[in-house]
């Protein structure tokens, strides 16, 4: 068998399994972090090799997985997220027990995401999602003495279990209807199942539950605020920037390959879910007092935006969706890492704790401002560029009889306008307001590794925003690869 297509996953998986063993030899947190980073770096190199060699799609074995422009791009996204998370974690979990397991679990979660990115079969997709889920349950519960973390893990795990049961049941129905689990074969057969349509819809809905859970789509979102709030913040960053994106990859593959033939059946429903999701997310974010919960709801709203890509379903829309996933990974991941960084220097997680932050650390306040403004879609930042592509897709792709899609753009734009309110509020707190009474006012001493992770995100957000066309090109290649 030719394992070329699997090299990136294999490398990360090997490092993940080796870490606990390394821990027996050398119990040093920073060394373990360095080893994990090395593993991720190696894996990134192997993905880069794919890009540089221009090898074209490499299928694994009998077509369970494929390494093409689409999967390679997402592997890069997931690997970068894991890289940033570990870089940031190397300081935030210093002094905790079981750090080797922590890094190992982050790497395993990443392996799961990468499997999803390269899956061409429901089977691999399910296994990939489960690997990520199981690792992240454990990671959310990582701080064993922390009541909130444990509660978050309980909720996450119960909700995740239900969703995974739904997905599996849905997959079993699809298997029963088509006799196959491969996306392409399902896609070829699904249009011919006129008489089993209701059954197919049932299966479709059940599969959506699992993916909807991962991406925090309303009404399957309710775990997200609690879990994002209770989990260690670096893990929250991973959930928002990595695991959530994995859900979208799964959705793209499922809807736009397997279910494309019956798109007319589900596009309106997905469009409605998109609008509901962005609206609920933004409205709930308006009144939050905890910065993590606010970001969690904002993350739900962003899921609504990305769902536009699924509902429109053209290559152009998919380009926008992929692009927004990419930018969102950096801006939301970066925002959570800022929160994590500030938590290590005793700045709380209430939004009010950020009052007067600019006076204590100009760098942190500036970074947070850039990341939040990018989330709000203010030019010339990355979030703006990706929103432009995403929101213009319903207009560009309008086919006969689907003019209603324009409402997706309208809803997206109105929602962005609303969202600016709560993002700007944080910025105002940081820059305009005075420090709270009795709060310390000396300059902050930030952990270098975490500051570096933040800086990478900020540079990425500005860089993508200023030179979006290169990145759009990558996303377009990826979208073409998915549709090929």
């Amino acid at each position, binding site marked *: 068998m030719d394992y070329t297509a699997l090299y990136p996953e294999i490398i990360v998986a090997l490092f993940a399994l080796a870490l606990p063993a390394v821990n027996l030899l050398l119990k040093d947190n920073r060394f373990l972090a360095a080893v994990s980073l090395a593993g991720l770096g190696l894996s990134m190199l192997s993905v880069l090799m794919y890009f540089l060699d221009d090898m074209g799609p490499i299928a694994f074995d009998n077509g369970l997985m494929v390494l093409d422009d689409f999967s390679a791009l997402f592997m890069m996204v997931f690997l970068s997220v894991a890289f940033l998370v570990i870089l940031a974690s190397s300081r935030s979990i210093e002094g905790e027990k079981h750090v080797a397991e922590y890094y190992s679990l982050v790497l395993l979660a990443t392996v799961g995401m990468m499997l999803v990115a390269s899956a061409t079969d429901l089977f691999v997709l399910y296994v990939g999602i489960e690997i990520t889920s199981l690792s992240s349950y454990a990671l959310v519960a990582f701080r064993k003495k922390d009541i909130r973390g444990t509660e978050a893990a309980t909720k996450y*795990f119960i909700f995740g279990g239900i969703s995974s*049961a739904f997905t599996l049941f849905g997959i079993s129905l699809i298997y*029963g209807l088509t006799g196959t689990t491969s996306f392409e074969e399902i896609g070829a057969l699904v249009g011919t199942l006129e008489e089993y349509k209701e059954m197919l819809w049932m299966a479709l809905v059940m599969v959506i539950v699992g993916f909807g859970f991962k991406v925090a789509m309303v009404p399957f979102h309710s775990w997200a605020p609690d879990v994002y709030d209770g989990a260690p913040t670096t893990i929250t960053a991973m959930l928002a920037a990595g695991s959530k994106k994995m859900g979208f990859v799964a959705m793209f593959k499922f809807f736009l390959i397997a279910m494309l033939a019956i798109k007319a059946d589900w596009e309106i429903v997905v469009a409605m879910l998109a609008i509901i999701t962005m609206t609920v997310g933004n409205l709930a974010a308006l009144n939050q007092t905890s910065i993590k919960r606010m970001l969690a709801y904002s993350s739900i709203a962003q899921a609504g935006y990305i769902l536009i890509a699924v509902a429109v379903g053209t290559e152009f829309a998919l380009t926008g969706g992929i692009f927004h996933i990419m930018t969102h990974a950096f801006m939301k991941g970066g925002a959570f890492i800022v929160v994590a960084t500030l938590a290590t220097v005793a700045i709380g997680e209430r939004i009010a704790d950020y009052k007067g932050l600019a006076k204590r650390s100009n760098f942190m306040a500036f970074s947070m401002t850039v990341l939040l403004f990018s989330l709000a879609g203010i030019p010339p930042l990355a979030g703006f560029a990706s929103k432009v592509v995403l929101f213009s897709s319903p207009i560009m792709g309008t086919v006969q009889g689907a003019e209603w899609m324009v409402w997706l753009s309208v809803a997206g734009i109105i929602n962005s306008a609303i969202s600016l309110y709560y993002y700007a509020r944080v910025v105002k707190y940081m820059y305009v307001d005075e420090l709270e009474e009795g709060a310390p006012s000396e300059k902050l001493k930030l952990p270098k590794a975490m500051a570096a992770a933040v800086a990478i995100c900020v540079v990425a957000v500005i860089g993508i925003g200023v030179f979006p066309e290169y990145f759009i090109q990558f996303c377009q290649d990826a979208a073409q690869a998915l549709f090929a």
Partner: protein
Amino acid sequence: MIPLEFVLMISSVLFVIGAAGVILKKNAIMILMSIEIMLNAANINLVAFSSYFGDATGQGFALFSIGIAAAEVTIGLAILLNLNKLRKTVNVDDINLLRW
């Protein structure tokens, strides 16, 4: 041979029982068990279809999913154990620190 419809009925009933258990039971362990029932309903489906088609994919899938379910139970029980240690309860109505 058992007709396919019968098997599907069993699996559907099991799935609904599981779903009902998830939202009605207050004990987190019971919820965990209900989730297992739901997963197994799906496994029954997979195996039934597999034998109906004479195709091994479904059975392979089912084996994997049983493995995954086992891992899930392990992690779930570990989390609940820790929860019980911290809060002295596994009643889901008592855990709502995180809300709004």
